[in-house]
């Protein structure tokens, strides 16, 4: 089989309710921000074309509900993710403390082939709030956490002001591409001798 050139990269954004997952996605995809808090229901995605090393990719960014009661169907959409973005609010210790849960939950549910090396990216959002005065999670602390989880790349962003959002998603795309999560290889176990597929597959391009 030819290894198809992958053009679709799937990214999942996880984190506590209210940390700004939707805002980050909207800022990156639509360059828009709203100060109003609106809960997300279920899973929702937006796509964005990105250019990387002279190739064009479609980034499929899945925004998720931070509130458990709006995730009634479960997380089947984790499957096939190429990168997982963990988001916390630098002004909320609880949202930082919960990162472990989100990461573990993702690894269990998505069950990537190589969990040790699955690409995560950590984003500390809302650095603009109150000029940084209400911040409770230090950059050092966040970086230490990243180091302990196998050097996860870390970005501090403001979805409101657009600070560092582009850079973070560049990195997310790069890591998704490198992720090595190959699509499930499927070979049909029964081969229909009479069909036209059969004929095509004997003369395959490999």
């Amino acid at each position: 089989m030819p290894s198809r050139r992958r053009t679709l990269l799937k990214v999942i954004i996880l984190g506590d309710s209210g940390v700004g997952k939707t805002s980050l996605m909207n800022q990156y995809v639509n360059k828009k921000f709203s100060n109003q808090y609106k809960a997300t229901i279920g899973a929702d995605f937006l796509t964005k074309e990105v250019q990387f090393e002279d190739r064009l990719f479609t980034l499929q960014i899945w925004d998720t509900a931070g509130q458990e009661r709006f995730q009634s169907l479960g997380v089947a959409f984790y499957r096939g993710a190429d990168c997982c973005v963990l988001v916390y609010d630098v002004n909320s210790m609880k949202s930082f403390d919960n990162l472990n849960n989100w990461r573990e939950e993702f690894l269990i549910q998505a069950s990537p082939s190589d969990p040790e090396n699955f690409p995560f990216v950590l984003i500390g959002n809302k650095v603009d709030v109150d000029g940084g005065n209400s911040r409770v999670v230090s950059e050092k602390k966040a970086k230490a956490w990243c180091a302990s989880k196998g050097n996860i790349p870390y970005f501090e962003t403001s979805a409101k002001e657009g600070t560092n959002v582009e850079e973070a998603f560049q990195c997310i795309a790069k890591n998704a591409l490198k992720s090595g999560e190959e699509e499930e290889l499927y070979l049909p176990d029964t081969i229909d001798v009479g069909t036209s597929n059969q004929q095509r597959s004997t003369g395959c391009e490999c």
Partner: protein
Amino acid sequence: MIADGAEDEEKWLAAGAAAFKQNAYYMQRAIDSNNLKDALKYSAQMLSELRTSKLSPHKYYDLYMRAFDELRKLEIFFMEETRRGCSVIELYELVQHAGNILPRLYLLCTAGSVYIKTKEAPAKEILKDLVEMCRGIQHPLRGLFLRSYLAQISRDKLPDIGSEYEGDADTVNDAVEFVLLNFTEMNKLWVRMQHQGPAREKERREKERSELRDLVGKNLHVLSQLEGVDLDMYRDTVLPRVLEQIVNCRDEIAQYYLMDCIIQVFPDEYHLQTLDVLLGACPQLQPSVDIMTVLSRLMERLSSYAALNAEVLPYFLQVEAFSKLNNAIGKVIEAQEDMPILSAVTLYSSLLKFTLHVHPDRLDYADQVLGSCIKQLSGKGKIDDIRATKELVTLLSAPLEKYNDVVTALKLTNYPLVMEFLDNETKRIMATVIIRSIMKNKTIITTAEKVEALLELIKGLINDLDEPQGLEVDEDDFEEEQNSVARLIHMLYNDDSEEMFKIISVLKNHFLTGGPKRLKFTVPPLVVSALKLIRRLPVEGDNPFGKEASVSATKIFQFLNQIIEALPNAPSPDLAFRLYLQCAEAANKCDEEPIAYEFFTQAYILYEEEISDSKAQVTALQLIIGTLQRMRVFGVENRDTLTHKATGYSAKLLKKPDQCRAVYACSHLFWLEDHDTIQDGERVLLCLKRALKIANSAQQMSGTARGSTGSVTLFIEMLNKYLYFYEKGIPQITVESVESLIQLVKNEESLTSEPSAESFFASTLRFMELKKEKGGAIGDRYEEIKL
């Protein structure tokens, strides 16, 4: 069959997934070789797997997600095809050749997505076509997923403001219409599920419906994300249409969930401006809907909105958010006749928290909430639901927590009335919470009026309540509670003597009528409080303004007498006895002889009538002698009477050694160093001689009763007394009497058999030596003693 359900389902899913993968594989190959016809054929076969009815929503979602991923590849392929010259209109026609309706519609949506992207037709036309076509699937589960697919692929193609698909003909209105239509259809499918299948599977069906709810709610999320849905659009179109659907579907699950969704997905600002409409829908919901949770969450959101954005507060006032919520809650409770008391209380608890956060300066609002709460509770008697009681405690604690100041809570006139609905135990718990709040915040209550109000609140701890039979309060708990009341007394304070006297008078009135068993805890701190007040009073005649002080020491002493008087009736005579002596000392300082004498008399009466235990008598007598010794206020006559009695009591103690010790202690009553008139050497000597006589007879008694020695210690103690007065230079205490006493101890046989007595004696001798060595006048006196 049912037991194997889960296992079977796994099998079905595995079978479906296998067939699915195979077709997906061939579809991919067809795409790779740009074979549109085959790609359509295999994708349709692949999508046929979604026609199953055997999977639960969770498993179906699993399969759906696989299809979703594959269809993205197909969509990219379609896009490439159109670039290669394939007409998208033809493509849109072509996909409709699929034999089965479900695959056909999935393919149509996918092709439609490409169609919109190519902009060869207005987005709204295509969207309208798609949402209408989807009516073809009326099976709830399959229909819901198909429409959620439509919602997802159209998500970024809606003619929203600022969207590339917005045009002259395509406006945000079309986008909203499309989403609303899809929402309505989905809700209908979802609600219809409730009424399909046998009644016995109701539980399973409700579980499945619950799992599917986010598919329906997702539409509201999409609406909230539309740029064009501004406040006007929301108020005029979105909210009324959504609410209409919610109210009319008359389905409990849908109503509860969708109300919650509206509150969560749309911004607080919108809610604030449309409160009437949103709240107006609540009483129209089914009576079984858990409206309590819905409204509580709304109030929670609005409170934190106000907390985070101080600048929006004027809007809260402008739209009269508080009274609207208050009214709505009343109406909801009215409409839902069977609403449990817990829900009603919880609603008011949330409303109270809301108003405390949003309008901390509007105490009248808080009082209104309490008033409304009373209205709901009245006629229902005491609450017997434990959780409702707990919630009521939460409600009552909220103002205390908010203001950290009980004084503010005391201004809430309805507050004590709400407390009336608590059972006795909870009343006490609440009272302890109030006291704890005062202690924690070190709140000083400064007026009698406030103290009165406070006592009303904590009366569970102040008064005996009618306890139902068999419900005795735990002894330890009672003690703990009363101790907290005792601590509280020290927080009731005013610098102004007059007000302070009023405060303690209020306390007195409540304590004295609150039942006898708590008096032993509350009277002592009240006595201390009153004594402190006496100390603060200006010295008489020292009043520069010539103003007649309404609070005099005499008045307070009278007060003291009254409260202590209550104690012997509250079986605490020993405590009353001590307090009388304490008051006597205070009267001594105030130079109030008759009052001091009166207190002493009271103490004596208690000693004679109430203190019968011999050990307690010894301790009590020590207190009498000690206190009396410090009294300066008495004239000769009164003093004589009191000392005479004290020596009399001493001689009447049960045990000889106790008698001896008490009698020699009395000697101090006749010789006060700093007091010229009380220096009566004769009577000192008389006391000592009498004590010595008792010691002698004690020795004789112990001689007969073998083994019980100890009288030698008495003699050594006597020796020390003699030395004390000898050193003071009292003429009646001669050097000979000291010497003979030393000789007496030395001759005592038992001295060597008692190590403690022996070392006591040795110390005494060493003390005398030291005095000698020190020299001076005292040294000289010691020099005279021949050892």
